[in-house]
Structures are given as structure tokens and as C-alpha cells.
């Protein structure tokens, strides 16, 4: 691969969009200033399954300030029901509690909300089923799981090998339903100016919103424009359009020429913006007495919505982490009357590596081995399933570097040995991994301006991921110019197609398109192109994509304190060491990796969405009930990385870093809790009620 020379890359450039965000002037979706706005407030179903018999909108329509009410009887007809999640206000059917069943468009947000409160609905309720358990008789195997992986895999005879193993771990782990909960709610301003629909949206992909919404509404793609220069976090939940995009568009059709402003409330985000499925994971590890794995069996049960399938790839990391001659992985789904689960930071790896890395800790204890050493003994030489050579596997270096920095060798391996004024202290380790993805389909355009300036355009997204800054650095190096000479434009479908900011693929995919466009510019216009010269290119396919197993790896080390009387757990120290190829901007990369670790801490100790089976919805649907880590929860935390250039991955030498920080973090903390207390908690989150006695 032809690599680009790092000059801007590798430097800690400050966030280009930082000042505007710090002043609060960078416009997020709801903040675009438009004339004569209207406001939308939805009505949601209060049954989890059944049909609407009658909706009385008269009281709402007569309210001062209300412009219109739309229901399944009055909304415009959509063109495609291919994606059932987006089949909004098209039928009387109710698939889950909280589904949109009407919406009020009004002159002010207060009137819209008051109007929605006045809509009377009669239902014919059917018996709903939202009961998630591993004992259900109707669990089924999906055709594939998310990202196209096989549902089940099987090597050797894992069951027999497990039965015959000298040392066995057989444990069941659970992770709860979790919600992405970005700070900026899911938001759309929709304006219909026939024949054009414009959406100011908060999204991880303007282009996928455009194509999906266009298809849904029966519009041509070029009739729709989506604008999203700044995104207040997504973590997967803004990776694809959800029902609110369609609802806003339907409302816009009703009030041509006027912007319809719509932001989900925090409560609504718990049923309309995706979530991570709960998981029940039985993990069986068989090993020799000296800790060499002879069998790995990972059985996963998770849920999907009945109306549209989403199958998280929870067992996928188990297929590559450790060497074993026998291995079996399996995913089974319960289809329930719930909203559709979706992507949440490192889908698959996050829950799967929680179970797998705690199981490894249990095996280390069972074998009397140091957990780092156990992992060293099971390092696979090649990808265990594909038998491809590793592109760049540096797990052991991460573990060793982390152990050195964390003073791991000073640790007494026995649990419950250290305490300080009523607090037990323990430490734990876990591995992390995330695939290197480069998505095909992005295109970048570069245009030469006056005095050596370049305008680089690509419809990419920055959801806090640093895209504004890192793509500028990549473009500067691709064009061999200073970063000041690069004018980047992202976040608008007026710019060329860009794939989603997901799967930690953004910078790799978009950056490569920019590199390719710079090469094309040079090919067409020579080394010193004149003002007005322009070139465009797409992300190419990597030569090593099929022949090498390309993944990032990491090691997470955590130290916790556990109150012996109250069961409170406090993280006191945490370090992540990662191998992710070249780090394009160390200042921003450290933030993002620590951010992933912080979300992992939050998963370990706090997060749990509770579904009330009688009603069918999440009842702790706000930030007072659904706890995410606060400032006081995060103490001494740091992330570092191996000095590395991956010349198989991208011409920048990089792989993505958006997700690996969360992977393994919860396991490291759970393992530390075990080491502190001698109590193994296998069900997240680790809250005081699980430790107090």
C-alpha cells in the first residue's frame, strides 16, 4: 500500500470545531435559525400491541396555536414499507408501547405539547409479550447476525472437549438493556418546499438519512437534502434514521414552506432511538491444568423486536480472541413486542467481551494462573476460524505494557487481601478487540483554490469523534500542504457520498477517499495544480482485506474500592493500552479512548434499562432513573497506545478507535470487584444491592 507521509498526522492539533462548541454557537440540528418555525409533539401508544380503534383529535385542533394534527388516518402515504421501523402513521397497528400514533404541529412548543395531551385514543389491545428469558421455547436462530456474521460457528467437538477438560468454567453472564443516551436528543427540522425536502438532522450519516427518507417517502434522492454539521453524540443510535425522521417529514408535508422542529424528549429516546439488547450468555471454557484452552463454548440469547429483526453479534469476538482446537458459538433471539434494538457502541464486542473476559478471569482463578499469563498461553498464531494470518495483532504487547505501567506484578493474586479504612481494594484486567472496518462507497472531492488552498468535500459526520480535525490533518498530508491550507466541508448531502460514522470505520473510509482524491488530483493536474482544478475519488478496496485478519486489540486494567458495609463500588484507577495503528491526532484520540472506557465504567456500575413486563416499556426512562457515569465516578483514568503504523489497513496507517475503548472495560472492572471482595458478580450493573450483605 502506498502510505502518505505523516506531517500533520500524529500531531496534537486542537479541535478545529472546538471554539464554536465551547462558546455554544456551533449549530446542532435544532439550532439552525429558520423563519416561521412550527413545533411538533408526538402522541405515543399506551399499549404494547394491538390496534387503534379511534383517535379523537378535535380537542387538540381547537387549541390556540395548534396548526394541524396528523394520525394514521390523515398522514400522507409512504411509498415503502421495507423498513417497518419507518412505517410511521400508516396503519392502526401498534407494535410496541411508545410508538408514534399521532403528532401535533403548532406555533409554539408549549401548544404542541398541550395539544398532544388532549388527543383521546381508543385501542383494541392484544396480549403483548416482552418477557425476556433464556428459557423461552420460541428462541430462534437468525439467518445472520449484525454486520453479516454467521449466526453459529463450530470447530471440532467443543462439547466433548469441554466434558473431558481438566479445568472447567461454566458460567452464565447477563448484561441488561442499555440505552445510548447521547446528550443531544434525536432531532430533525424538516422543511417541504415542493419538490424539495430539507432535513436539519442529528445523524451519523447524512447520506443514509437521505436515501432512506427518500425511499420511504417515494422521492428521488436528489429531492432530499440532509444537513448535519454538528452532532451531539450518537454512539450508534444516530447511525440510521429512526421513526422521528419520518414523522417530521410527514409533518412537513402538512405545512409546506414552514420548518417543522422536532426533538425527542429524553423519555421518548428510551423507546424511539434504539438500544442495546439485553444478553444472557452462557460461557464454557475447558482447559488443561496449565491453562491451555481445549474448548470454548459461547451461547448467547438476546432479543429483537417482533416487527423488525436486529441481531447483535455478541459471540463474534469469541471466534478470534484465543486459541482452542474446539470452539462453538451460537446466537438465539427472542422476538418481543418491544422497539427495535440497534447499534450501541461496539455492538457485539461490548457485551460479548464482558462475558468472555470475566470467564477468562474465572479460568485464571481455577488454574491458579495470573490472568495476563493465561492470555499469553492462549495467544493464537493465526485467526482461529478463518486461518488467515493476523494483519497486526499486538494483544500481548498491550497486556505487557499495561501490566508494566499499572505495576501489575506487585498484585497479590489472592482476592480480598487489601483494604483501607473499610474499603476493600482489588484490581482486574481484561483484553479488548475491535475489527478494522473500511466501508466502501465514500467519495471525496478536492478543489484547488487561490494561493495553495484546497477545499475538501465529503458528506461525513463529526459526532464528537474529531472528524473536522482529523480529516483536515489527513487531507493536509495527502496534499502535502499545511493544515491551514485545507478547508474541509462535511455534514451535508450537497457533499459527495460518505458512509456512516459507525463500526469505527469513519476516518479510515473517508480518509482513504481523501487520499485517493489527492492522488487523482495529482494524476490529473500534476504536482502544482492551478486554481479551479478538481478531482474526485472513492475509497478503494484494500489489497489485504480478504487475506489478513485485521483487528485492533487492547488491554484494560482497573482498580476498584468496595465498601465492605454498603457495597458501594468506586473506580480508583484505570488504564487502557491499545493497538490501533497510527494515531492520527493523539490529543483527540486519548479523549475518545478514555470516553469509551468511561462508557465501559458506566456499563459496569450504573446502566440498566428496566422493562416493566406488564406495561411493556422502560420505566426508568430518564437520567434520574437511568444512571450514566457522572464526573465523580471517574477518577484516575488514562489511555495510551502502542507506537504503530498499520500499512495493511489504510494509507494513513490507521485503524478506527471509536469503539475499542469500551470493549473489555466492564470486564476489567468486574474482575477487579472480584479481586477486591472475593464475590463474582456476573450480572451487570454492579450496584450496591448485589454486594451488600
Amino acid at each position: 500500500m502506498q502510505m502518505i507521509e505523516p506531517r500533520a498526522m500524529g500531531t496534537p492539533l486542537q479541535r478545529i470545531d472546538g471554539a464554536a462548541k465551547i462558546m455554544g454557537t456551533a449549530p446542532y440540528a435544532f439550532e439552525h435559525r429558520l423563519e416561521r418555525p412550527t413545533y411538533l409533539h408526538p402522541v405515543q401508544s399506551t399499549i404494547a400491541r394491538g390496534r387503534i380503534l379511534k383517535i379523537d383529535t378535535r380537542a387538540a385542533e381547537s387549541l390556540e396555536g395548534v396548526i394541524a394534527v396528523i394520525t394514521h388516518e390523515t398522514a400522507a402515504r409512504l411509498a415503502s414499507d421495507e423498513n417497518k421501523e419507518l412505517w410511521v402513521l400508516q396503519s392502526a397497528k401498534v407494535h410496541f408501547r411508545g410508538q408514534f400514533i399521532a403528532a401535533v404541529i403548532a406555533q409554539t412548543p408549549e401548544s404542541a405539547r398541550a395539544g398532544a395531551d388532549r388527543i383521546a385514543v381508543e385501542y383494541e389491545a392484544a396480549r403483548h409479550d416482552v418477557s425476556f428469558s433464556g428459557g423461552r421455547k420460541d428462541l430462534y436462530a437468525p439467518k445472520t447476525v449484525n454486520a453479516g456474521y454467521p449466526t453459529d460457528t463450530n470447530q471440532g467437538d467443543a462439547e466433548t472437549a469441554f466434558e473431558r477438560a481438566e479445568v472447567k468454567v461454566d458460567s452464565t453472564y447477563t448484561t441488561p438493556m442499555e440505552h445510548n443516551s447521547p446528550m443531544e436528543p434525536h432531532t430533525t427540522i424538516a422543511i417541504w418546499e415542493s419538490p424539495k425536502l430539507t432535513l436539519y438532522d442529528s445523524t451519523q450519516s447524512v447520506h443514509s438519512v437521505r436515501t432512506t427518507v427518500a425511499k420511504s417517502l417515494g422521492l428521488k434522492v436528489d429531492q432530499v437534502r440532509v444537513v448535519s454539521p454538528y452532532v451531539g453524540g450518537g454512539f450508534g443510535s444516530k447511525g440510521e434514521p429512526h421513526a422521528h425522521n419520518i414523522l417530521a417529514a410527514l409533518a412537513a408535508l402538512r405545512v409546506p414552506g414552514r420548518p417543522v422542529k422536532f426533538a425527542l424528549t429524553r423519555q421518548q429516546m428510551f423507546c424511539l432511538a434504539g438500544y442495546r439488547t439485553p444478553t444472557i450468555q452462557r460461557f464454557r471454557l475447558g482447559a488443561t491444568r496449565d491453562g491451555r484452552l481445549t474448548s470454548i463454548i459461547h451461547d448467547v440469547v438476546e432479543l429483537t423486536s417482533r416487527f423488525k429483526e436486529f441481531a447483535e453479534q455478541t459471540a463474534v469476538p469469541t471466534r478470534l480472541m484465543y486459541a482452542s482446537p474446539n470452539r462453538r458459538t451460537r446466537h438465539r433471539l427472542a422476538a418481543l413486542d418491544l422497539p427495535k434494538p440497534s447499534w450501541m457502541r461496539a455492538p457485539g464486542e461490548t457485551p460479548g467481551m464482558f462475558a468472555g473476559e470475566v470467564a477468562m478471569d474465572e479460568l485464571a482463578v481455577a488454574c491458579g494462573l495470573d490472568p495476563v499469563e493465561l492470555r499469553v498461553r492462549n495467544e493464537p498464531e493465526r485467526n482461529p476460524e478463518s486461518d488467515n494470518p493476523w494483519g497486526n495483532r499486538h494483544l500481548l504487547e498491550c497486556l505487557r505494557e499495561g501490566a508494566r505501567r499499572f505495576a501489575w506484578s506487585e498484585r497479590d493474586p489472592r482476592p480480598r487481601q487489601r483494604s483501607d479504612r473499610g474499603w476493600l481494594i482489588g484490581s482486574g484486567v481484561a483484553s479488548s478487540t475491535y475489527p478494522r472496518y473500511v466501508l466502501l462507497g465514500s467519495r471525496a472531492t478536492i478543489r484547488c483554490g487561490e494561493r495553495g488552498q484546497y477545499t475538501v468535500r465529503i458528506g461525513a459526520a463529526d459526532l464528537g469523534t474529531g472528524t473536522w480535525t482529523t480529516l483536515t490533518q489527513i487531507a493536509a498530508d495527502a496534499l502535502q500542504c499545511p493544515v491551514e491550507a485545507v478547508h474541509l466541508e462535511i455534514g451535508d448531502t450537497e457533499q459527495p457520498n460518505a458512509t456512516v460514522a459507525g463500526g469505527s470505520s469513519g476516518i479510515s473510509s473517508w480518509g482513504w477517499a481523501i487520499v485517493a482524491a489527492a492522488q487523482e488530483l495529482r494524476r490529473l493536474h500534476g504536482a502544482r495544480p492551478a486554481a479551479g482544478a478538481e478531482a474526485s475519488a472513492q475509497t478503494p478496496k484494500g489489497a489485504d482485506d480478504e487475506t489478513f485478519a485485521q483487528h485492533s486489540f487492547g488491554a484494560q486494567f482497573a482498580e476498584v474500592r468496595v465498601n465492605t458495609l454498603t457495597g458501594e463500588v468506586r473506580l480508583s484507577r484505570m488504564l487502557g493500552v491499545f493497538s490501533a495503528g497510527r494515531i492520527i491526532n493523539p490529543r483527540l484520540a486519548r479523549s475518545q479512548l478514555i470516553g469509551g472506557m468511561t462508557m465501559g465504567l458506566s456499563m459496569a456500575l450504573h446502566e440498566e434499562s428496566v422493562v416493566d413486563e406488564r406495561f411493556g416499556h422502560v420505566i426508568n426512562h430518564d437520567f434520574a432513573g437511568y444512571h450514566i457515569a457522572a464526573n465523580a465516578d471517574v477518577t484516575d483514568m488514562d489511555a495510551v497506545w502502542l507506537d504503530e503504523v498499520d500499512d495493511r489497513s489504510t494509507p494513513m496507517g490507521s485503524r478506527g478507535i471509536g469503539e475499542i475503548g469500551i470493549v473489555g472495560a466492564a470486564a476489567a472492572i468486574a474482575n477487579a470487584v472480584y479481586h477486591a471482595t472475593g464475590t463474582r458478580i456476573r450480572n451487570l450493573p454492579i450496584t450496591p444491592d448485589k454486594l451488600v450483605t
Partner: protein
Amino acid sequence: MKASITLRVDGEQRSLTLDTRTTLLDALREHLGVTAAKKGCDHGQCGACTVLLDGRRVTTCLSLAVACDGTSVTTAEGLAPGGTLHPLQQAFLEQDALQCGYCTPGQICSALGMLDEAQAGHPSFVTEGLAAPAELSDEEIRERMSGNLCRCGAYVNIVAAIRQAIAERATP
């Protein structure tokens, strides 16, 4: 029902007529076009809407605008007249104390309010013996900043930025 009020927002006197149901947050965002106060939860559970009201940090989503008649509001935008960042804002930039940026203006206002409270000798939940802390430890900063949630997980750098601003104050 309508009410007419006057607010001083980022140094500028603003008069407006609004529904009594309008919160201070919506008055700023929807009526005055001031976007530095963000709506994250609308229920006092995230801190993204924090501003300085008559000099003190408050959430704005649970205050009715009509009850704030005659008050003075400073947002993160007002701290940077002409786009020149306040030293604390500059510290946020240098320490990369933000990612998506949505909670950031609230963090800034909260941090400034918090520093003033500490200056005035206010203790926090973690202050030993409830004495006025001689200096803000990291633990003190974390506790005092816990009313501002950040889902990106920028807390480590937020604490570093505040520490930098304190150090710069001490050495003029």
C-alpha cells in the same frame, strides 16, 4: 397566557412577550436565538442547560421565564465577547475537554459558578469537616462538577481544564 418580561442576556437587554409556560431555556433558545444553553433532558437531570443567572450557576429548564423577569443571564457565548475565549474556555480547548460539545457550554458555566462558590468558601459533599477548602483537589472538582453529565466521557479532561484555569488564576 402571555407575559412580557425583560432579561439581560450576555450583556444585552432583551424584552420579550411569551407564554407563561415557556421555560427560561426555551426563551433563550427559541425566542432569543441563544443556543449556548442546551436542552439535554429538560428535567434538571443533566446540566446541559446551565447558565449563570445573576452570577450563579443554575439549570434553566426548570425555571419559568416569567419568574426570571429582570434577571441577568450569562451563557458560554457571553463569556467570549467577540469570539475571544475566556481563559477557562481556552483551557477546555487546550485540554480537549469536550468531544461532541453538546454538554460543553453548560460545563463551562457550571465550572465558573463552581469556582466562585469555592472562592466564597462553600464546602462540597466531599469537603473534609465542611471547612472551606484551601484549594480544590481533583476530588473536589469532580464532586462539584457532577451536575453536568457528559456522555462522551470527557470528565478526565474537564477536570484537567478546570485545574489549568485555577493554576492560571493563581499565577497572573
